[in-house]
């Protein structure tokens, strides 16, 4: 696969600043007008285990990572031995020469099976079980190896700025790896300095030390490796205002915008970042029209850390009953605990938004790794039949605007909405054109607050049968709106009823709302279709595979293998007619999913009876790269592969 872009990786022990340095790298590039896509991999651990961050840059739109690394920046031994294999011919590895002779067996955090795989490769090449041994293989594969004597250079910085504390100096090691990378790429030093200054806005001393460090690193690299690395990185002037958005920030911000005023949560990776963002931004800015004038005011989002996810979901429901837009965010194990609460929201027609951050399952699974394995569960959470909406976002922009949609659906159709996102999106960063928040429109449906117009005292028919199934809904506290909620089947006032006729009426009323939703929700919110109408291959998928698929699709189409892509966003109510139409006319359908069983494929078969027979799946916890998809599609297209391809890339 040809690449017109650049892929950089940095790694190190959890807690050693990998994330910060990658963000500085990404921002420096983005500042210069490059498009950025970054994502992070880490263990379920606090300190010490290996984590790494990939940043991909391009002048064009990119939306995913690639497996091949153009430049690997390391400052510890583990990163070098783990990732050297991923660097392409003509690529580069930056490393600390003082670690070269480190024996691999001394690296505690490498699993036994990974270690033995390394040894057999080294043995096959007759090389020692050391960092140098691994780098030697890379060198033989045509990779440039750049030694950066971090400590030496840092001491120089220390001399220059008058800092003698070694620990203060070594804190800069990771950013030095960034500086060395940019220096090798001949990227304007000013952009890096700029990014550093912004990053350390509140710590001017650290900023200045880093600035000095950058200069020294650039000098060293220029002197020692002058121009030896083939790839040059140039800024690209642009007038487009851009943001570098992180997945875990996205939804929190959108919830503020969308009017979410009660968020409950129980800590869980990777969902809780969102709640913590909300907590940190609990006092919010409002622009309210007073006497025809926009006035700035303050409001607040109440965020409650609960004792468990059962409390989180039921507390959010309570909040919704009392008139708040309320939601909770969680991941697999927490979501499993919410099954009963969701059913209660279903039978009581409560607008509830659950943001589900999928991660590797089942059970605790791979808590910090990626998977899209909860679709079927989200469609069928809880016993019995009740209506729900399941919406899946495919990238950060969709995530942002889908939040408003989720709350709107929840209130218009008075039901629980599961907004599905995933670890890959939560832990990725991407440049976007500045969002226009005014595109978000709030629709609260038949909510009544304050007082029921024209209603006398006495109970209110909250669950009144209507043609659409939706009935006016007073918030608790509304004058004239007294009614009851119960998890039991109930009559129009909400009182328990076991009468069979009432039961039928209520079941039908509730389920009917899904027909309404299916009818009202515009097609653009249900599906996205990309690529040529007639194509040799039709890819169908959902969620965060979108980016990698689009990137692969572009490459395939550019090569003449015509591919299109149907992204399913609304999984319940399912856009049956449209999907059936597209897929039954498609030449070759391939379902692409980040789970073992091809869950969406099953849903499509169930809803359309189109026999989806080809699958590209992945379940090793690492997101799909566009290269993997590209390769797999090609193999299926030319018939050289079975109908089910399992992708296995990723470290």
């Amino acid at each position, binding site marked *: 696969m040809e690449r017109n872009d650049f892929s950089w990786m940095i790694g190190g022990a959890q807690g050693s600043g990998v994330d910060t340095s990658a963000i500085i790298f990404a921002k420096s590039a*983005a*500042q210069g*007008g490059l498009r950025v896509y970054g994502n992070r991999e880490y263990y379920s651990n606090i300190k010490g285990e290996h984590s790494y961050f990939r940043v991909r840059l391009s002048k064009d739109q990119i939306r995913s990572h690639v497996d091949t690394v153009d430049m690997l920046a390391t400052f510890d031994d583990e990163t070098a031995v783990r990732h050297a294999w991923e660097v392409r011919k003509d690529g580069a590895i930056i490393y600390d020469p003082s670690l070269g002779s480190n024996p691999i067996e001394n690296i505690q955090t490498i699993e036994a099976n990974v270690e033995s795989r390394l040894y057999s490769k080294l043995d096959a090449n007759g090389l020692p079980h050391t960092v140098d041994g691994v780098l030697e293989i890379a060198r033989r594969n045509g990779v440039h190896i750049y030694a950066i004597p971090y400590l030496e250079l840092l001491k120089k910085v220390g001399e220059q700025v008058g800092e003698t504390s070694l620990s203060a100096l070594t804190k800069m090691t990771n950013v030095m790896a960034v500086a060395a990378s940019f220096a090798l790429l001949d990227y304007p030093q000013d952009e890096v300095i700029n990014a550093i200054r912004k990053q350390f806005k509140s710590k001017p001393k650290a900023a200045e030390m880093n600035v000095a460090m950058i200069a020294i690193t650039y000098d060293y690299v220029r002197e020692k490796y002058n121009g030896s690395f083939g790839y040059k990185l140039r800024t690209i002037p*642009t007038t487009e*205002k*851009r*943001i*570098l958005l992180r997945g875990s920030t996205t939804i929190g911000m*959108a919830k*503020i915008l969308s*009017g979410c*005023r*009660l968020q409950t949560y129980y800590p869980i990776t990777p969902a809780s970042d969102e709640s913590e963002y909300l907590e940190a931004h609990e*006092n*919010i*800015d*409002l622009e*309210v*029209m007073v006497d025809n004038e926009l006035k700035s005011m303050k*409001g*607040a989002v*109440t965020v*409650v850390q*609960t*004792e*468990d996810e*059962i*409390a989180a979901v*039921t*507390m*959010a*429901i*309570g*909040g919704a*009953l*009392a*008139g*708040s837009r*309320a939601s909770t965010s969680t991941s697999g194990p927490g979501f499993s605990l919410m099954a009963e609460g969701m059913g*209660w929201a279903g039978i009581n027609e409560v607008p509830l938004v659950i943001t589900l951050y999928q991660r590797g399952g089942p059970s605790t699974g791979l808590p910090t790794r990626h998977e899209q394995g909860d679709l079927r569960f989200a469609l069928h959470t809880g016993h019995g039949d009740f209506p729900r909406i399941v919406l899946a976002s495919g990238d950060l922009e969709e995530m942002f605007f889908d939040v408003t949609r989720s709350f709107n659906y929840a209130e218009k159709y008075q039901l629980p909405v599961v907004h599905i996102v995933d670890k890959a999106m939560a832990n990725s960063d991407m*440049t976007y054109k*500045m969002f226009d*928040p005014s595109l978000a*429109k*709030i629709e*609260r449906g038949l909510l009544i607050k304050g007082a029921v117009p024209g209603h006398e*005292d006495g109970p209110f028919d909250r669950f009144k049968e209507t043609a659409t199934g939706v009935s006016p809904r007073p*918030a*608790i*506290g509304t*004058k004239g*709106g*007294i009614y*009851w*909620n*119960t*998890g*039991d089947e109930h009559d129009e006032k909400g*009182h*328990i009823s076991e009468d069979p006729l009432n039961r039928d009426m209520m079941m039908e009323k509730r389920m009917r709302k899904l027909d309404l939703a299916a009818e009202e929700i515009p097609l653009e919110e249900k599906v996205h279709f990309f690529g040529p109408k007639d194509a040799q291959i039709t890819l169908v998928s959902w969620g965060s595979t979108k980016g990698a698929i689009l990137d692969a699709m572009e490459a395939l189409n550019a090569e003449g293998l015509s591919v299109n892509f149907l992204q399913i966003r609304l999984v319940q109510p399912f856009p049956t007619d449209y999907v059936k139409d597209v897929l039954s006319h498609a030449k070759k359908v391939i379902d692409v999913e980040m789970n073992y069983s091809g869950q969406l494929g099953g849903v499509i078969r169930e809803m359309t009876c189109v026999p989806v027979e080809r699958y590209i799946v992945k379940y090793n916890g690492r997101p799909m790269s566009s290269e993997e998809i590209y390769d797999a599609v090609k193999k299926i297209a030319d018939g050289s592969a079975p109908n089910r391809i399992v992708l296995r890339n990723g470290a």
Partner: protein
Amino acid sequence: MALKLTDLKSDFHNDWCPGCGDFGILSAVQMALAEMNIDPSRMAVVSGIGCSGKTPHFLNTYGVHTLHGRSLPFATGVKLSNPNLEVIACGGDGDGMGIGAGHFVNSGRRNVDMAYIVYDNGVYGLTKGQASPTLKLGMKTKSLPLPNINQGINPLMLALAAGYTFVARGYAYDVRHLKDLIKKAVQHKGFAFLDVLQPCPTYNDILTKEYWQGEGLLDAAGRPMPRTYKLDITGYDGVVKTDDVGEMEEKIKQAMMKSFEFGDRTPIGVFYQNERIPTYEERLGARMPTYRDNPPGEQEIAGQDGRPLATVQKLLDELRVN
């Protein structure tokens, strides 16, 4: 306009067993609410699942009959969404201290300004009389095939350990006294826990009305001596009056010791009360100045044509890279 008792009664058919202690509690709740004259439409009664869980249906207020064991988080959600409402949670002993024990403990930590009434009958009524967490070890009610194999919990002690700022016990058939306790619990600033001894004539043939009213416990004159006595009459004072931590600890200790008394002399009344501890809403208010006056459930969120009132432009600007 003062509320009448009938204003608080819904016309939903009550199907508790004849003689059930729940009737006493329901009356006391109705009387208390009427006397406090709280607008029924500014009030929510939130219950769990069980015979007791049906209570909200019999009251003419917003009623939320939730899931087994979950009344407290539901109620907390309602209250935090709109702290201007009066919220009362209620439910069975199994509901509250069996399946709901986790919420029971952790709600104590929060101190949301609500009241929680537990209908303590020693059994799982609605599922036909299995032992509940308050039934003592070895007790064999008529509904049990074998004596209870678990130790019983002391709800008052558990509440004190969990941090409730109001801990009291009432008796279902002493309706007036119970009514006063309910008023105190509702008016208490903070999370109030009220355990109510509730005879279940259908399944619990040990802790019956007759038992509590002194059956088999005769005074010199051969008259039955009630097994409950009122704390306040004995001069007991459970109320914390200063911010002194020492006083608080003293009162908690006193209440704990009192809570050991059970059986022939069972105290009812307020064991402990402390309004010196800020409520959860006060703590939220300290962090979010607009919380009280413009709470989540009452905030306007959209203007004309659905335009969001919240602006996130500043937050987006923080993410700008060029």
